[in-house]
């Protein structure tokens, strides 16, 4: 046992010395390998955490949202739709929702404005932390907005949502229904859409079918559809995700190509010398196995640990840049960490195992030929 451990340690010692002899080549290889694993693991952590966050947040989503369409675009829903829908068997509540968008010409930002008659909330408007930061606002300050009849609307800031709620409320302004109607010159007796609650979730498709049949211009959106939108977010068919995956795949093809096309003359000569001084073929294979493992295992462990830090401690600045796009107001992606052991295992078997195998196979070919031929090659 001790002899076996000593043999492995000696071969590992030689492997490290051999890798350090070609320091520049191996360090650049390690850096590239690490970068590929870092990007893949970051994407995996980010998407898994975002999906989990979405699943938690959207448990509060309405059972069904009913919109009205006019000429293919969303239109306001008259109150009578709500009254008629409330009479459908199985529907327990219909709540008209008032919400919309406000373009702030001062900073070019888009805000989401929602009306709420929540009496438990602090008086005044509630705004997202990102708006407070962009407009340099504090509780008690006035936020001037221009209404649709061009008169100023001064909103007193009653509360600011904590930045931990950015994933829901970064760009949100919650105000009273009266302020909402004044701001948008919103017609009375109408709503942006209807939030419908159904007693038995199994009846949702039936209720949706009844609504669609009773109001042909309506569009019911089920909670399951809302949740599915976020479960398919960052789907591999999405442009940016495809680019990351394609880059990673291409890098691995280059690695594998480099290894599979054979050894350099110098490496072949080294194997010849080792065999001529008494190394067994198994020793040479073990040397190459360790060489592959040192590079790939180091890249894998460091890549995954760095990706975890990037996503959960630094709020994924690389992906946040892509998500910011042209947005002026954007959230800070403070995600609650999630580690999916299955996905990490897949990443390990798709990266470490092929690379280590690709390192050993050409060496096996070189190590089985005559040392003299190997040195002369």
């Amino acid at each position: 046992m001790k002899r076996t451990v000593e043999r492995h340690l000696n071969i590992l010692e030689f492997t490290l010395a051999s890798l350090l002899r070609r320091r520049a080549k191996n360090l650049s290889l390690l850096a590239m390998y690490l970068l590929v694993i870092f990007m893949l693991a970051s994407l995996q952590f980010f998407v898994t955490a975002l999906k989990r966050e979405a699943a938690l947040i959207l448990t509060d989503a309405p059972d069904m949202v009913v919109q009205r369409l006019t000429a293919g675009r969303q239109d306001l829903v008259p109150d009578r739709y709500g009254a008629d829908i409330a009479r459908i068997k199985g529907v327990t509540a219909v709540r008209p929702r008032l919400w919309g968008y406000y373009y702030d010409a001062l900073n070019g930002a888009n805000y989401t404005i929602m009306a709420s008659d929540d009496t438990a909330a602090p008086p005044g408007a509630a705004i997202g932390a990102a708006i407070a930061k962009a407009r340099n606002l504090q509780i008690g300050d006035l936020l001037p907005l221009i209404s649709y009849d061009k008169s100023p609307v001064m909103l007193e800031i009653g509360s600011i949502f904590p930045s931990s709620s950015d994933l829901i409320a970064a760009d949100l302004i919650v105000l009273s229904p009266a302020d909402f109607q004044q701001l948008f010159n919103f017609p009375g007796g109408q709503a942006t859409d209807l939030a419908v609650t159904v007693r038995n979730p199994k009846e949702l498709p039936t209720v949706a079918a009844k609504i669609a049949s009773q109001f042909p211009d309506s569009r019911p959106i089920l909670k399951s559809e809302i949740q599915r939108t976020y479960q398919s977010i960052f789907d591999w068919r999405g442009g940016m995700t495809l680019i990351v995956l394609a880059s990673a795949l291409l890098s691995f093809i280059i690695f594998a190509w480099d290894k599979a096309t054979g050894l350099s003359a110098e490496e072949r000569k080294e194997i010849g010398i080792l065999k001529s001084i008494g190394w067994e073929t198994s020793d040479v294979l073990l040397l190459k196995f360790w060489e592959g493992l040192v590079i790939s295992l180091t890249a894998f462990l460091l890549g995954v640990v760095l990706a975890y830090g990037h996503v959960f401690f630094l709020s994924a600045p690389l992906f946040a840049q892509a998500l910011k796009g042209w947005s002026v107001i954007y959230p800070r992606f403070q995600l609650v960490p999630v580690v999916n052991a299955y996905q990490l295992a897949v990443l390990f078997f798709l990266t470490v195992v092929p690379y280590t195998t690709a390192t050993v196979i050409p060496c096996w070919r070189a190590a089985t030929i005559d040392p003299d031929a190997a040195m002369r090659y």
Partner: protein
Amino acid sequence: MRRSLQFILFTAVTLTVFLLLPLHARNAQHHREAPVPQLQSLHVTDLCLATEARYTRHPAVADSHAPFQEHPLALEHFPTGALILPNIPGRDTK
């Protein structure tokens, strides 16, 4: 210290950190901040991931979407359109 032992020690440390990640994640999930009641009462339908376009701010309740609906050669204008996919009914059940 031998170079091989240094490497094994380094790998052991990174492996320990790697194995601690699930524990850290579980701990963070237990200590997740409670949601703001005012926000819960709004029953929001979408996450605020991007605010540049309506269909990426509220993808779940955006207009029905078909590829190249504006023009046969129209490419996506907003960067987030390449990340946040439209809600196409029945897409995941096919």
